[in-house]
């Protein structure tokens, strides 16, 4: 797998990152469920596949990947490589949006951040990504840039039995603002393993909204690391919409590395059939006066399994931290499983940290109230399930993105309600 990259021309820092990644991955291997961090993530079935390095995708797709990317600024990555035909890269003041491969050679900034934000020593698949990634996206906002239209990054995987390692680097310089949607989808029922790494740096006074949609085929594997580093007075709002993948895991870590930072780290998960969807989040409060809010809404049907692990570290210096975590699961079937683990470690004494985890079913009183108004039982249930998830979608600031995700939520839930 490691031979796929032509490393002759690469700068020394990148060669050293690749070597480090290969070494870490070699040492850690594929974790078993005996590893506490991977206790509920069954990776055994990965071993049964003869994995090949990712190859460039086709020119013609079974499923039109632009279904997802309909905005004016969009970059489409097919099997980890930027596809210029599908991308739409207008000149926007203050925005650089380009192939990561090109940026490595053309933009000195890349060396300052790439591999510096993601902690690959703890994540064997991110280490592997570092060793083998071919291309991806470099998104840079220059100081003071305010990009109004949504910027879309769409990852498509096509084919079978390949390991696809897209790499994304987002750097928002001081006082910049942007809304980014990053989504993963499959061309038909591809059965690849996607191991993306996205690194985000949010500089002082910057404001970034970052929506993730995981919508790959139900036969695919997806093991991702997203890591964000925030400087003082910045705001980062992350919404993880996880619908896809047979086995899909995200580790999302935020370093709150300054004062007066605001962070949102929200999620909507819908798992059906035999899907396993696992989200591990970590908020690292290093300094005083920061706020973090986290709401995870999880809908689990059939024999699906959902894992939520929410770590919040409040270090000794991080006085006046306000951290609020809520995670709720709605079980729609007696065979659905949720493994939920809030994990707060607090070393400062003047903080406000709360967490709440609930697991429930559709409340009979709600259902009866709606039925008593004439709404049939099945519709009542659909409305209630939708409303449960919508609480997070409603937080998104862009109406077009929100409505698209609402429609996708309907179809994922198999309901037809018309727009609310």
């Amino acid at each position, binding site marked *: 797998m490691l031979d796929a990259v032509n490393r002759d021309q690469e700068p020394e820092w990148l060669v050293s990152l690749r070597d480090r990644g290969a070494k870490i991955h070699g040492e850690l291997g594929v974790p078993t469920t005996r590893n506490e961090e991977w206790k509920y993530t069954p990776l055994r079935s990965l071993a049964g596949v003869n994995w090949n390095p990712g190859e460039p995708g086709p020119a013609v797709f079974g499923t039109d990947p632009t279904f997802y990317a309909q905005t004016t600024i969009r970059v489409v990555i097919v099997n980890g490589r930027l596809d210029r035909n599908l991308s739409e890269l207008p000149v926007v003041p203050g925005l650089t949006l380009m192939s990561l491969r090109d940026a490595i050679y053309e933009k000195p900034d890349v060396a300052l951040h790439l591999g510096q934000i993601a902690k690959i020593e703890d994540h064997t698949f991110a280490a592997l990504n570092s060793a083998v990634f071919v291309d991806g996206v470099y998104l840079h906002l220059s100081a003071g840039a305010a990009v109004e239209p949504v910027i879309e990054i769409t990852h498509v995987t096509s084919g079978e039995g390949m390991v696809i390692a897209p790499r994304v680097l987002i750097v928002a310089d001081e006082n910049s603002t942007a809304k980014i949607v990053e989504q993963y989808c499959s061309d038909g029922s591809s059965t690849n393993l996607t191991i993306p790494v996205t690194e985000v740096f949010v500089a002082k006074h910057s404001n970034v909204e970052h929506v993730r949609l995981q919508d790959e085929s139900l036969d695919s594997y997806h093991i991702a690391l997203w890591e964000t580093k925030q400087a003082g007075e910045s705001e980062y709002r992350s919404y993880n919409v996880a619908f896809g993948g047979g086995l899909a895991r995200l580790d999302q870590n935020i370093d709150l590395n300054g004062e007066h930072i605001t962070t949102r780290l929200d999620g909507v998960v819908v798992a059906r059939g035999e899907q396993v969807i696992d989200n591990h989040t970590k908020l690292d409060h290093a300094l005083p006066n920061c706020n973090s809010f986290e709401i995870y809404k999880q809908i689990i049907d059939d024999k699906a399994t959902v894992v939520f692990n929410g770590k919040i570290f409040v270090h000794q210096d991080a006085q006046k931290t306000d951290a609020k975590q809520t995670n709720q699961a709605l079980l729609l079937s007696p065979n659905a499983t949720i493994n939920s683990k809030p994990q707060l470690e607090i070393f400062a004494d003047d903080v406000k940290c709360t967490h709440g985890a609930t697991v429930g079913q559709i409340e*009979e*009183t*709600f259902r*009866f*109230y*709606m*039925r*008593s*108004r*004439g*709404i*049939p*039982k099945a*519709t009542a249930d659909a*409305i*209630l399930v*939708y*409303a*449960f998830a*919508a*609480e997070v979608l*409603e937080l998104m600031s862009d109406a077009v993105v929100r409505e698209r995700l609402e429609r996708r939520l309907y179809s994922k839930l198999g309901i037809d*309600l018309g727009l*609310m």
Partner: protein
Amino acid sequence: MLEIKDLHASVAEDGKEILRGINLSVKPGEVHAIMGPNGSGKSTLANILAGREDYEVTSGSIEYKGEDLVELDPEDRAHKGVFLAFQYPVEIPGVSNTYFLRAALNAKREANGEPEMGSMDFMKYIREKVKQLGLKDELLTRSVNEGFSGGEKKRNEIFQMAVLEPSLCVLDETDSGLDIDALQTVAAGVNALRSPERAFVVVTHYQRLLNFIVPDYVHILMNGRIVKSGDKSLALELEDKGYGWLDELVVS
């Protein structure tokens, strides 16, 4: 419109009998008040009429417009014109009142073979209802009962009733938790809906609601049976004497 005969009902979960032989006949245009002390079974009766599955009808019958109501699902009852204004209306975050009512109204229209009401027509229709009841437009965009005060919730029940235009309106302790101003608004909403085709069953603990919604008949429910019936003066007598003087009428 409504004929209840020797109705016995118990809690589905533990089989505890609550209603022990209720007889009640309600004709179109009438307002019947059901009064009784706590635990007498009056809320149970209201909920059974709407089809709550927590209770089981063990014997007797409920006929509504000549049809057996007991076997119907709650939504089918609603489609045929039964409406329950809840004692504790449920909060449904994320579902706007407008969406909720449109889903409800169109389900009813579909069940009755009427065409679906489109979005534009529906907005016009409910705005009119909002105006008629003297409510605020913001009610329409808010999530169903979410964060509403007690009074707002009860007003919303009456608003839903006005939109769905039922034939049989069952009000379950609509006065509970209301101050006098809210009580008057709610009562005015109910009175505006009174018509020769529509009947009301008003369940209440206190007489004061009946100052504003004047009943044709008052029934006193104790220990699962109607122990006394009369006209509105019976409610005033109750206000005076409480329920104690009726104890001897209760058959245990």
